[in-house]
């Protein structure tokens, strides 16, 4: 447990060692406000809720989260520091989890910094703050899912740019899995249970309910299982390929 914390702290500090972290936070905050107020027509809708804010998170995360996770393992392999880390008395699991938690804490910070929107909506009307809190939890879970996929992408290569692009592609597949576009490709030949299974793998299916303030235990389990699975895959890939 202690080791996870030590690795997490180091990783989190490394985000802020370069301007990248500040640039990321700035871009995220500018885009999220742009989407909410222009595309989401926050004022024009005349409703005291944050639906236009949360409904764009999956699409913003699609491009921004792989940028947060791309360096996690690719950089370690490129600089060779993975050899140092993996020969210190820490387990692979502690390292995978510590790094993931650092990336998650960073994205959580980005979400926390969107608080002026929450203040605005409370100033303008009286929204359901419980639902807003639930939606923030949903966004954090969505970020965790994306980050775990990005962590696997980063473990597969020593080039962060490749990890970024592979991460976006893989996250996109999971994002649109519930869309007719994808499901129609399966409907022609696959039995209904398979189509349902593919549909239920999609992020949006599970995110949309939470983002409207409804926390269903099945959606929670979905995100926890998906994240765990991808982190385990990361550990397996690293165990086999760490020295290559």
């Amino acid at each position: 447990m202690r080791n996870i914390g030590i690795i997490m702290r180091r990783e989190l500090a490394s985000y802020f060692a370069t301007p990248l972290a500040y640039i990321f936070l700035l871009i995220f905050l500018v885009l999220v406000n742009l989407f909410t107020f222009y595309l989401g027509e926050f004022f024009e809708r005349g409703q005291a809720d944050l639906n236009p804010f949360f409904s764009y998170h999956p699409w913003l995360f699609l491009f921004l989260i792989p940028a947060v996770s791309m360096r996690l393992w690719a950089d370690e392999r490129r600089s060779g520091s993975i050899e140092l880390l993996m020969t210190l008395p820490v387990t692979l699991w502690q390292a995978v989890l510590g790094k993931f938690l650092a990336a998650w804490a960073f994205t959580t910070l980005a979400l926390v910094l969107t608080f002026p929107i929450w203040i605005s909506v409370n100033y303008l009307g009286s929204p359901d703050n419980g639902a807003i809190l639930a939606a923030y939890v949903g966004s954090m879970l969505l970020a965790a899912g994306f980050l775990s996929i990005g962590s696997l992408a980063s473990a597969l290569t020593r080039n962060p740019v490749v990890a970024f692009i592979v991460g976006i592609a893989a996250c996109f597949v999971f994002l649109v899995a519930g869309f007719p576009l994808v499901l129609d490709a399966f409907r022609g030949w696959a039995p209904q249970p398979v189509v349902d299974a593919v549909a239920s793998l999609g992020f949006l299916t599970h995110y949309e309910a939470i983002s409207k303030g409804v926390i269903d235990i099945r959606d929670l389990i979905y995100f926890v299982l998906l994240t765990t699975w991808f982190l385990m895959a990361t550990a397996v890939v690293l165990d086999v390929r760490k020295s290559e």
Partner: protein
Amino acid sequence: MIRTEGLTKRYGALTAVDAVSFTVKPGEVLGFLGPNGAGKTTTMRMLAGFVNPSSGQASICGHDVDADSLAARACLGYLPEGAPAYGEMTVGEFLAFVADLRRLRGAARARIEAVIERLQLQGVLGQTIETLSKGFRRRVGLAQAIMHDPPVLILDEPTDGLDPNQKHEVRSLINELAGDKTVIISTHILEEVDAVCTRAIIIARGRIVADDTPQGLAARAASGRLDDVFRTITA
């Protein structure tokens, strides 16, 4: 104490390390010699638990490097080839990070100060590692390897890239440290073997081709020079 038994690493059709068996006892400083690509680094990486052996066993202080990996790593100080570190961290932060993971506190923690002084790192503690010269980086790598006073030291090319004065410094450091420790160093510099090693293993194409004292090895050539022995048996 380091023991290997039939240690083998295969990459596809290539056998990088082929059934290497040896034992290094406390007090011994073993020089690991061989041409580039002979399997020195792969052998050391298997001992450090970074590369999984294809077959055979290795143990550090009696702990199997595969089955009891954490215990083996806890008694090991390891300097990987090229002394990798986190470039964006300062020397002080980096050493504190390693000390945290090694659970050094109290008197053990105070030892770090002595190590920093011994390796003359006081002046660069606040500098990020990526801005350091090769010689300083190597010394930072050495500092993290010895800070916990491990019974076993494995140093992959500890003097590579150092100037003659720094080489001399590192060699006397190894001599000082040796005492009752078990040490393996790999090197290309044959004079280094004379200067610090009590025993030398020459490895070529993944196999041990000689295992002797430096004097015993040198005596194998008519000229009595280690270079000549090295060239004859690894050619």
